[in-house]
């Protein structure tokens, strides 16, 4: 196989992996940073980094956790570079507002806002479990915490969300 063939095969492999998981990468990034426009930047950087280190991905069936790990690191790098303030729920950008109110179901939007307001420590494992389908073991590995801590955070995240939703319903 000459270098052109190698290059083409690398492109094909990258396209294959990215086409399957780019939505997950974006949603994970969006819920990590809580800003759609920043999420796009984070995903762009993550894709570039994934391209550069594609050879390190030995098996395509390990691509999802690999890509999400890259997104997580790029998100951390982004916030380290930009030194952004914590997001204030009452002072959202148009893009952030759109992220939270894009359905015609007001109850769903309320739930989305409740998720948005969760602490990072609770929101991230919830996204990884519910949206990405990760096991608690996989979440523990990705977040670098104990499996028991993941269980506790998931439990508390759901309790907080239920309380928030019930509070909204009662209001």
């Amino acid at each position, binding site marked *: 196989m000459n*270098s052109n063939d*190698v*290059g083409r095969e*690398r*492109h094909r492999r*990258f396209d294959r992996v*990215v086409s399957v998981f*780019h*939505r997950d990468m*974006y*949603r994970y990034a*969006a*819920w990590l940073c809580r800003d*759609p426009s920043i999420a*796009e930047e984070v*995903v*762009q*950087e993550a*894709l*570039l*980094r994934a*391209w*550069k*280190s594609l050879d*390190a*991905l030995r098996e395509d069936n390990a691509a999802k956790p690999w890509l999400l*790990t*890259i997104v997580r*690191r790029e998100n*951390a*790098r982004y916030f*380290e*570079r930009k030194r952004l303030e914590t997001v204030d729920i009452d002072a959202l950008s148009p893009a952030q507002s759109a*992220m939270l109110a*894009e359905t015609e179901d007001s*109850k*769903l939007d309320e*739930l*989305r806002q409740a*998720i948005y307001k969760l602490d990072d420590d609770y929101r991230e494992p*919830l*996204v990884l479990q*519910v*949206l990405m389908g990760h096991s*608690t073991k996989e979440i*523990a*590995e*990705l*977040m*670098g915490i104990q499996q028991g801590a*993941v*269980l*506790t955070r*998931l*439990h508390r995240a*759901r309790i907080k*969300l*239920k309380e928030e939703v019930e509070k909204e319903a009662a209001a």
Partner: protein
Amino acid sequence: MTTSIKNMNCEDYKEALAGDPSASFAGGDAHVAACESCAAYTAEMQAFDAKIAQALSIDVPDLALPSLPPVEDDNVVNMPFRNKQTFSMPTWVGIAATVVIAAFVGVRMIDLQPGSGLPLDQEVLAHFNHEPSALQVTTVAVSDEKFSSVVNPSIGTMDRNVGLVTYANSCIINGKTIPHLVIQGEKGPITLLLMPEEMIDGAMTLEGEGVNGVILPMGDGSIAIIGEHDEALNEIEQQIIDSVEWRI
């Protein structure tokens, strides 16, 4: 059925359900079959989870792929601090002349100083960026066999109790084979490059995008330590230094 499963109470069940809302964990079926309250709670939580999943599924915009550099340029792209430049023809002539001279000098010096010619800190950072696969957050330690083959007697010894060693590989820095290790820190993976032959006068801070690192002098060599941006490396530097002994 184990005793713990048999004795699973409602609180245990609810906490386990939070970790696995499908309730497929051991003892879950048995408990829910015997507890109407938890059966109702399970149905309620599963319905709630479906709504959470729906809420999390935000629209995804059309994402444009970034401009992908050619594979041949990988080693250039991965170098930090290096910007792509274009050169005019006269500049190329100058570069070509410089290359010829440098090649001549390089051939004369190769026995003295093998390697890439980059300063040590840039060589270390280039290598760090070139092996991102090493930076897995994991609880799986490398085997003793692998560790011993990397930190072998030609290098020296290292007490691996300094941290959970999750990656070990023999790599090349400045033309010399050195152990590249990763331990799990408080904030994430910490890269260690043990360089027994890279003597430096004093500690060198590693500066780069998202990099928090240092190269510390140690006898006739040095050790590079690179961690997450918020990792308190100064708290573990001495431990790492103390854990290593170069071959005499």
